[in-house]
C-alpha cells in the first residue's frame, strides 16, 4: 500500500513539474495598488510577493496618475529579486470637437492647442518608463495633469501627448492602450502615429460574458492599425480573496453601499495576479510573449537616480 501510495505521489509530482515547465512566462504590466485611491485593494508589497509566488518575469506598478507606490514596490521587488517596472495609468479628458479648448491658465500651464484634435474619444493609457529619461518625462506628464486639476484629480488632454507638447510625446516611455468597448480604428492610428514602435493594444480578458468576441474585436483592431496585442490583467488586487474589499472600495468611491452598487462592481474577482496556467488558457500565446518584450525594453530602476547630497 505504501509503495503504491508513494508511486502515485511520484507520478503526480512529475506531472505537475511538467505542467509548470510548459507554462508561458508572463510579466504583468497593468497593475494598480492601493495608492490608486479607492480602486486598488492591495499594498504594493503584497502585489510583489504574489507576482513572485506566481513566477512572473516582471511586475509593473501603474497607479493612476501617480508614482506614490513605486518606492515601496521597488524595495520589495529588489528584496525578492523580481524585475520591477515604473509606470502610471492615465485617462484623457473629454474634449470638444472644435479643436480650440479653453485654456485654464490659472490652474497651471495651459494645454497645447492642437489643431488636429478631431475625435473626442477618451483614451485610457498606461505609460511605462523604459529608462531614466522616460521616468523623468512620465513624472513631468503627471505633474502637468495634476496641476491642471484640484487635489486628488487630474486632467490630461490628447494634445499633451503631441510631440510638440512640453511633455513631448512622453519619449522613452512605452504606451499601453486599453481600448473602450467599441474601439475606433482612428484612435489606434492616432496612437500609432504619436508613439511609433512603442504602443500596444492591451487585451484584458476577465471571463466576461463574451471574451471570444472581445478578442476578435481587438484582433481586428490590431490588424487595421498594425499595433501588437499585449496581454494584461488590469490588476486591482493581489489575490482573489481581496474581492470583498475591492467591492467595498468601489462602493465608497461611488458614495453608495455594496447592496446598491450593482453593475458598478466588477462581476468577478479575476482582476488579481492570476496563475500562469489560467492566463495560458485565456490569452493567445503571442500576446503573453509580448509582455516579455516589454519587460526586456524597460531597463529603468529606481536605484539609478542619484540625487546630489549636500554636505554640511
Amino acid at each position, binding site marked *: 500500500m505504501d509503495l503504491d501510495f508513494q508511486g502515485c505521489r511520484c507520478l503526480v509530482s512529475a506531472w505537475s513539474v511538467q505542467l509548470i515547465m510548459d507554462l508561458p512566462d508572463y510579466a504583468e504590466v497593468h497593475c494598480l495598488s492601493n495608492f490608486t485611491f479607492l480602486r486598488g485593494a492591495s499594498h504594493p508589497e503584497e502585489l510583489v510577493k504574489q507576482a513572485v509566488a506566481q513566477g512572473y518575469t516582471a511586475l509593473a506598478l501603474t497607479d493612476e496618475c501617480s508614482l506614490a507606490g513605486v518606492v515601496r514596490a521597488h524595495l520589495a521587488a529588489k528584496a525578492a529579486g523580481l524585475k520591477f517596472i515604473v509606470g502610471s495609468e492615465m485617462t484623457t479628458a473629454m474634449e470638444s470637437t472644435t479643436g480650440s479648448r479653453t485654456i485654464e491658465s490659472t490652474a497651471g500651464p495651459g494645454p497645447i492647442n492642437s489643431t488636429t484634435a478631431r475625435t473626442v474619444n477618451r483614451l485610457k493609457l498606461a505609460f511605462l518608463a523604459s529608462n531614466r529619461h522616460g521616468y523623468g518625462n512620465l513624472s513631468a506628464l503627471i505633474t502637468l495633469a495634476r496641476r491642471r486639476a484640484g487635489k486628488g484629480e487630474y486632467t490630461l488632454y490628447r494634445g499633451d501627448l503631441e510631440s510638440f507638447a512640453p511633455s513631448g510625446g512622453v519619449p522613452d516611455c512605452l504606451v499601453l492602450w486599453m481600448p473602450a468597448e467599441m474601439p475606433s480604428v482612428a484612435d489606434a492610428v492616432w496612437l500609432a502615429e504619436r508613439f511609433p514602435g512603442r504602443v500596444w493594444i492591451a487585451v484584458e480578458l476577465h471571463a466576461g460574458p*463574451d*471574451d471570444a468576441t472581445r478578442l476578435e474585436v481587438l484582433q481586428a483592431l490590431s490588424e487595421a492599425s498594425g499595433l501588437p496585442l499585449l496581454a494584461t490583467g488590469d490588476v486591482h488586487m493581489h489575490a482573489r480573496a481581496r474581492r*470583498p474589499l475591492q467591492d467595498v472600495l468601489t462602493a465608497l468611491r461611488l458614495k453608495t453601499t455594496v*447592496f446598491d*452598487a*450593482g*453593475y458598478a462592481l466588477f462581476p468577478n474577482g479575476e482582476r488579481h495576479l492570476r496563475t500562469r496556467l489560467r492566463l495560458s488558457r485565456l490569452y493567445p500565446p503571442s500576446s503573453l510573449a509580448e509582455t516579455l518584450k516589454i519587460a526586456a525594453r524597460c531597463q529603468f530602476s529606481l536605484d539609478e537616480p542619484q540625487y546630489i547630497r549636500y554636505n554640511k
Partner: protein
Amino acid sequence: MLSLEALSLRPSPSTIDSTAGIGTTKATVGASATEAKAGANTIEPKAGTSAVVSRGRVLACDRLASEAGVSAGQKLSTALGLQPGLAVFERDALRESAALMHLACWAGRFTPTVSMSPPAGLLLEIGGCLRLFGGVAVIVEAVLNGCAEQGYSTGWAVAPSPLGARWLAQAGAGDIHAELPAMQSALAVLPCCIPGWPGEVEDRLNAFGLKRLGDLRALPGASLRRRIGNGPLDDLARAWGDFPDPQKPFIFPDSFACDIELPARIEHAEALAFVGQRLFAALAGWLHGRQLLVRACTLLMTHDDATQTALELRFAEPAADEGRFLRLLREHLSRLTLAAPVEILRLQADEVVNKPGASAPLFDQAPPGEGVPACLERLRARLGEAAVQVLGQQADYRPECATRSLDVAPTLTRNFAHFLPSTAVVAVNAACKPQRPLWLLPKPQVLAERSGTPQWHGPLKLLSGAERLESGWWDQGEKGMAGDVRRDYFVACNPAGQWIWIFRDADAWYLHGLFS
C-alpha cells in the same frame, strides 16, 4: 382547413335589377379553407325569365326559368322551346373575372387570406378567424348572406383542405366538415366528374367502372398512376389532406376602382342604390383587407349617350363601414335626377388614409378603455395591496437576483408602459448586456456528469467560453438571499439541439436556464 364553397350557375331566388357576368367565388374562411363558390346571378328584366348561354347551351338560368323546365346543359333551342320569352345573355368571361375580383375584395372583411379559384371560385381561409366571428356557422351565414345581398347564388362547403372544400362546393354540398375524416367520407361519394379532370381520364375511369372518388382511393395507388397519370392522384391526395396544398393568396390591389356594366338601362337614381351596394361592399372589403379608411370616393355614372355624371361622396371622418357608405349614397341619389339612363357604374376610392392602429385588450371581456391598470386595481382590491406585484430589474450580477418584485402602486398612477424598467432600480449599465436565457429555473438543477461531461438529455457540448460570476458576498447567510456566488456559466447544447445555460461551481454542474 375549412372551405366554404358557393356553386355558381344557380339562379338566386331574388330578382335583381342589374346583372353581372357569371362569377363563382370560392371562399376559404377561417382556420381551414372554406371554399365558397358563388355563381353570379343572371338577372332578368322583372317580367321575364333569363338564362346565360355559351356555345348554344344553357349555362345557368333563374328560378322562374328552371320552374319552366330550363336547366343547365340544355341546348338553347330546347330552352327557348320550353320558355319562349327567355331573355338570353351570352357568357362574358371578362365580366366574370371582374365580378370574381370584386367578390374577393369584398371577402377581405372575413379573412386576410383569400385566394381566387377561377373561373368562379373563392377560397377563404377561416381557421384563424373562428374566434373573432364566433364559430364556423356564423361566418358561413355571413358569407352567404353577403353573396345573396349582392345577387350571387352560391354553392359552398367548409372543409379542412382547400381542394376538398372546392370539390364539395362544386357538388353543391353546403355542409360543414370541420374534421378530416368527415370530409373524406363526404368526398368519397362524389362522382368522378367533379374534379374536372381531362376528358380522357374521365373516359378511362368510366371504362374501369370507377364512378366515385372513393373508388379511386380504394385502389392501389402505384398501378392507378401508371394508368391515369400522376395529376388526378395528386389532386386526390391534396383533397384528402395527405399533401399540403398552399394557395396563392389574393393580393388586394393598391388602389380601388371597380365598375359594373348594367344589363338594363336604369333611369331612376334610387334604383342605382342596389347596384351601388355591390360596389360599396367590394370597397369595404378592400379597405378592410388593406387596413385603410376612405375619406372621399367617386361614383361615376356613364350614360347611354356616353356622357358622364360624377357623384363625389365625402365623409366627415374617414370611414370603412359599408352601411355608412350606403346611407350617404341614398341621400345623394334621392336628390339626383338622371339626365339619361345609366349604363355603367364605376366606383373609385380617391382619398384613403391608413387605419390608426389600436391594440385589442388582452382580456376581451374588458370594456374598451379598461386595460391593465383597471385589472390591477381589481386584483389589488380582491387579493390585497401586497399580493399583487410586478417584476422590475435589479442591478445584480447574480442571475437569480437580477429581477425583483416591486410594488404595483406606481403603475396605477402612471401609464403601465412607462413603469418598466423601474426608476427605483439602479440604472443598468447599457454596456452590460450579456446573453441571458429567457427562462431561468427557480432553483439550479444538478446535472449528472459522465467522464467529465455534463449530461442533460445526452452529453452537453459547450458553445461558449466560461462567463465567471463571483458576487453577492454581502448577503451570505441571510435568509432567502442567494449569498456568495462563484460560478462559471456556459451556453451548452445537447444532442437534441436544445440550448441551455449551465454553470459549474466548486461542487458540480448545474442547469440554470433554457434558451430554446
